[in-house]
């Protein structure tokens, strides 16, 4: 037990989780923004935009996240020499956020589209009938109801995003939780199982409140019909 507790003096486990939280926060914001625009494309009356939305979702939803993040480091950073900040680790951190956001935007788009399906067709027809064109109708009538219907699936995307933030190690954000776990196992192979359980528990503690919150909110905010 003393052996185990000494791990926390050598290694800063909360700091590693804090990096995952930051990654998840920024990636979630960007994914929500990109995903909403994509969902608008997919329900829009313009065929080329519909096509673009569908192509984006199919490409990024079906590409493994590890590959996207490895490409961020090897392709964008190393070969194309794209720097998103002056400092190296900030630049790599931001490239990882881009990778996470681009990937999860596809899932956010599909979650919002499922929310749109909960909005009765009559709502869109009524919006048209009072003279609203597509964008105002989407902004004022359809999306607000769609988001309220999409809270639970959006929560699932957020939970997946938090856990997937560990893949950022492939994009060279090694200070995050799974990277630290790898380091700890390398140096303290006598404590493999306690180390693993520590990190598993850490993620459970992070994720469970989000599950509870979104379940509660999806009930509370659902549009009564």
């Amino acid at each position: 037990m003393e052996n185990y507790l000494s791990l926390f003096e050598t290694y800063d486990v909360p700091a590693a989780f804090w990096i995952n939280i930051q990654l998840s926060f920024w990636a979630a914001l960007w994914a929500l923004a990109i995903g909403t625009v994509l969902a608008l494309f997919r329900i829009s009356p313009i065929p080329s935009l519909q096509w673009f939305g569908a192509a984006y979702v199919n490409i990024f939803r079906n590409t493994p996240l590890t590959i996207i993040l490895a490409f961020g480091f090897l392709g964008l950073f190393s070969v194309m020499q794209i720097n998103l900040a002056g400092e190296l680790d900030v630049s790599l951190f931001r490239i990882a956020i881009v990778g996470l956001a681009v990937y999860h935007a596809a899932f956010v788009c599909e979650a919002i589209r499922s929310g749109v399906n909960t909005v009765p067709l009559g709502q869109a027809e009524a919006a048209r009938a009072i003279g609203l064109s597509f964008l105002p109708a989407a902004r004022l009538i359809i999306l607000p109801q769609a988001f309220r219907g999409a809270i639970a699936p959006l929560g699932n995307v957020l939970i997946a995003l938090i856990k997937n933030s560990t893949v950022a190690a492939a994009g060279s954000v090694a200070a995050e939780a799974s990277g630290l776990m790898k380091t700890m196992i390398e140096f303290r192979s006598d404590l493999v199982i306690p180390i693993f359980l520590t990190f598993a528990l850490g993620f459970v503690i992070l994720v469970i409140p989000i599950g509870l919150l979104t379940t509660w909110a999806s009930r509370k905010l659902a549009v009564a019909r």
Partner: protein
Amino acid sequence: MQKTRYAAAAVAAVAALTLSACGGGDSAESGSGSSAEGGGESLRIGIKFDQPGLGYDEGGSYSGFDVDVAKYVAGELGVSEENIEWVEAPSANRENLLSNEQVDMIFATYSITDTRKETVDFAGPYFVAGQDLLVPTDSDIAGPEDLEGKNLCSVTGSTSAQKIKDQYPGVQLVEQPGYAECVTAMGGGQIDAVTTDDIILAGLAAQEANAGKFKVVGNTFSEENYGVGLPKGSERCEDINAAITKMIDDGDWEEAITRNTEGADYTFNAELNPPTPAPCA
């Protein structure tokens, strides 16, 4: 009546599936068992599959210095090359592979340390490596002191990465899943140096795709004693040490190093090499 008939059919179908699944499993097991036992004694040896020059999987055949030493030692133990079963032993799994007896021995750039000695036994060392730097051929970096403000790449969780973090805090360290990624990034120009044990770097530089592009600095700043990992309480240690000594004495050892680092402009640290195997505990 109709219902029971469907239920009976379902039960029969499930039973048939289960039975056939069992049959498949059995035949596969007996198949692999017989091939392992066919012809003399066999050994399961853990090596790296992804380290050119040391332990490298070339689509079913294996090359590298670790592999050559393992073959020699196995030969001395009376096991011919075709009776060796090569098992991938990534760094994080080495202790587990040994303590679960999934391999008989490990030759995988395995540094002898006190923490590791608590869970596994070691024979050897058969090589003394040192942490060093790999840099582009035209670089003027001559050692870790020149790294201030430079971008350095190493593998996540490795001893080398940790050492840099502890001793050279002014270095910008990039951690990647493997050294191949580090070398690719250095080829692109965003990384100034890659660090790990000198012989691993030499193996990377000797790869065909990298020939002539990088050089090993040759200014080592640590001492890593590569040992042969054995399960706790193994009785093979003495024999392995004897085999290593013999390999060094008859010149095969040096030839194996030269062959596996050809084209890398690398010479091993002659003060510490060849090592004398430590007495078995």
